[in-house]
């Protein structure tokens, strides 16, 4: 009888495990939903990327007179228009990173390593990543809004009804344009950053001659640095274009959903670029 009462009437001590069970279930539920959503996004993005590359290849020569101006327009938006912003970022990067590093290395008499540090920090890592993030912020987010609004207003259906493949007309020019833009802007940013960094070191009276500095840079660079830089920056551009186009186009949106899709696209693009960057570190270590 006493046992029965104890089992049916919840005691304070008996409530604690029940509460913990509920919290654990809630956490598992939450984590499960997040994992499922993550898997769905990866699946959707992967499928969208494959479709895009399939269309880009099979329609490589189709309607060039329509598609080429769209690519040029994208290069203008994601490349030429961003030159002032990238110049500012490059000078800041040069002053903050290179200038400081050269100055510090000189103090400990290790200025011979300046070139290696520059190449590792700016050429391989910061240059491509900063450029990608600037392009994402200035153009990628706008892409989602532009395409999401077009989707919500029925422009995608219009293109389909005219026999125009929306992936060919809306996505492929963005993928090519962004890949070209991020590649070119990264080279531009690296050159300006290396010059501005040396300028800062020069102003600080660091005993490092320009010829010596650029010889160090040249010595620290290998052929694979150029190949991997081209590959990495192009992939950054493609990832940003595919992710932003996917969020804007691949699902039915109302105008109210567009802002949320833009936030998601920026988050997914940053994560994807950082993951890709990490994969490239492995490649650099192997080569």
């Amino acid at each position, binding site marked *: 009888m006493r046992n029965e009462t104890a089992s049916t009437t919840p005691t304070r001590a008996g409530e604690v495990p029940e509460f913990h069970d509920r919290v654990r279930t809630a956490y598992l539920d939450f984590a499960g939903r997040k994992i499922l959503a993550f898997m769905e996004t990866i699946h959707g993005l992967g499928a969208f990327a494959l479709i895009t590359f399939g269309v880009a290849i099979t329609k490589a020569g*189709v*309607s*060039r*007179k*329509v598609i080429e101006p769209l690519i040029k327009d994208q290069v203008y938006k994601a490349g030429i228009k961003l030159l002032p912003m990238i110049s500012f970022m490059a000078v800041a990067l040069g002053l903050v990173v290179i200038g400081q590093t050269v100055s510090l290395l000189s103090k400990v008499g290790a200025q011979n390593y300046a070139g290696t540090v520059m190449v590792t920090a700016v050429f391989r890592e910061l240059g491509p990543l900063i450029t990608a993030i600037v392009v994402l912020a200035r153009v990628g987010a706008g892409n989602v809004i532009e395409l999401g*609004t*077009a989707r919500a*207003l*029925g*422009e995608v*259906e*219009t*293109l*389909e*009804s*005219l*026999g*125009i*493949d929306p992936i060919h*007309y809306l996505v492929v020019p963005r993928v090519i344009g962004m890949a070209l833009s991020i590649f070119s802007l990264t080279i531009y940013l690296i050159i300006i950053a290396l010059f501005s960094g040396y300028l800062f070191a020069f102003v600080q009276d660091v005993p490092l001659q320009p010829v010596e500095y650029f010889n160090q840079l040249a010595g620290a660079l290998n052929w694979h640095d150029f190949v991997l830089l081209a590959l990495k920056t192009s992939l950054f551009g493609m990832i940003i274009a595919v992710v932003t186009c996917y969020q804007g186009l691949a699902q039915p949106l109302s105008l109210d959903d567009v802002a949320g899709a833009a936030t998601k696209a920026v988050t997914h693009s940053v994560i994807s670029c950082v993951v890709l960057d990490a994969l490239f570190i492995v490649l650099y270590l192997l080569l």
Partner: protein
Amino acid sequence: MSDQTTIIPRIVLELFQVAVESPLHPGESEVEGMDLKMRAGEFWVISGVSNNAKSSILPTLAGLQKPLSGLSLLLGQNFQELSDQEMIVERRRIGTVFQGGGKMLKGLTVWENISLPIQYHLELSWADAAPKGMQIIEKAGLKAFASRLPSDFPASWQQRVGLARALALEPEIVLIDRPLGTLEFRHWNWWLKFLTRLQHGEIWGKTCSVIVTTDDPAPWADYATHFAAVEGKAFRVFATKQEALKSPQALADEISPEDFMGDF
């Protein structure tokens, strides 16, 4: 005895027991058991009360959306069995004009909107596509607006741009969603006359089959050759225009909020 034989025009659109999918609720049907046989040069009016499924059937008729069930033959072909490339070629033979301004592409002027399909499919530069584009613009009475963007353009004329763009590739069938919409009387006259001329081949020199959807079939009574209606989930083809004008839905004079609740 006359040896004259009557040539029966070919069938351009044929539907057998088609179920049309709802755009808002994928997997659910909006219209069921739809049968339709349309011959070249016919002018069909599909009516239905506001907010029913008459607009939803157009993407299925145009081959843009797969039927949930049944068979749809467009220009003698089952679009669902065509490859993407074949479908793109076939879609050039069908013009679709969507409701509410014809869904113009935002960044392009009226002239660019109309020239885009010409340029894309015929691999032409803007300059090379210009003569054909201007010819259509003039036929549609849009010359004064040619260089304007959609945002800088009267809404009542936008549907006309949609029509001009749909006609750019000289299609054999044109589907138009509620062309008269909220337009004023003078626009009505233009639409009714222009579509009749298009049907009779006075625009391109070849006949064109026309399908329009409308809330009220009355303005089309003297122009259309065939009438049908979407009533609930049923698609009904009328034997005569008198029957169409007397259909219960055409005569309904009350509107209820319940008619619109399902979509929200």
